[in-house]
């Protein structure tokens, strides 16, 4: 008896739904991804408040000061203490002055850790005031609970 060898086709699953889903996932993550997180600092966990809302317009000439739990101040990637912060602020202010603005036009955004000492924050504000900075924004996390 002659037995014919049958050619077996490879069983292929239909990949279309999987590819559809994967593309949907990629689209989802692409839309939500936020590369502009330069303001955040790993050493700072902000306190909560129910009253704050995300600002509708960006603040002019922002100077972002991160205050860690131990009172260290991070400005533009450099670490300062309340005593040495004047040097960092002067550098920022020279840029603002070069643009024809005064220190009073700048906005100091204070991102302090929730367990930092309030006195450390006050010291930072005092140093900034001595550099003729007037406008401060205490940044907090929006509490929606």
């Amino acid at each position: 008896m002659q037995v014919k060898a049958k050619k077996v086709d490879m069983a292929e699953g239909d990949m279309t739904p999987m590819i559809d889903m994967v593309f949907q996932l990629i689209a989802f993550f692409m839309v939500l991804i936020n590369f502009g997180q330069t303001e955040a600092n790993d050493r700072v966990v902000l306190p909560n408040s129910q009253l704050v809302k995300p600002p509708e317009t960006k603040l002019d000439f922002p100077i972002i000061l991160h205050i860690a739990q131990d009172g260290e101040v991070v400005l533009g990637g450099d670490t300062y203490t309340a005593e040495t912060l004047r040097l960092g602020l002067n550098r920022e202010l020279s840029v603002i002055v070069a643009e024809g603005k005064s220190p009073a036009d700048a906005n100091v955004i204070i991102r302090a850790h929730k367990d930092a000492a309030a006195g450390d924050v006050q010291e930072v504000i005092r140093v900034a005031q001595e550099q003729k900075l007037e406008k401060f924004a205490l940044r907090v996390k929006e509490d929606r609970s």
Partner: protein
Amino acid sequence: MRIRNREEGTKQELNMTSMIDIVFLLLIFFVMTFKIVEMEGDFSVRMPLASNSSGAVDDTELPLKLRLKADENGRLTSIAMNEVQLGTDFNALRETVIGLVSGTQPGDSPEVGPEVEIDTDYNLRYEHVISAITAVSGYKVGDETVKLIEKIKFAKPRR
């Protein structure tokens, strides 16, 4: 002559493997770099350095004094508004502020409204200061925010 078309019925399929490889790489990249953005907002404080000029000070313009005391671990031990002790309850503080500012008109601009000066112990945790600022700044009724005091300043730090 009969010609058999042996190729009849076979489909020409694209090789999807390389595309799926790339797509999965992209997916892994986006999943790994994904971070939920927390909504943040600001309490604005306008605080120029106090001038040394000795001009006459109107009593009605004196700020409300909010005193926050802390123990050695930075925990809040007492709140006092204009020397009135309020325990450690921020709701009591809010009620007091509502009573104090009830005379001002809702249409008044923040520039003419009352001002509060926060005087805290040095080692008090910053989150308590924010809770105090929240209590004096306003409160929420549903989705609406009722504003109380918008002018806030800090006293000199206590060492």
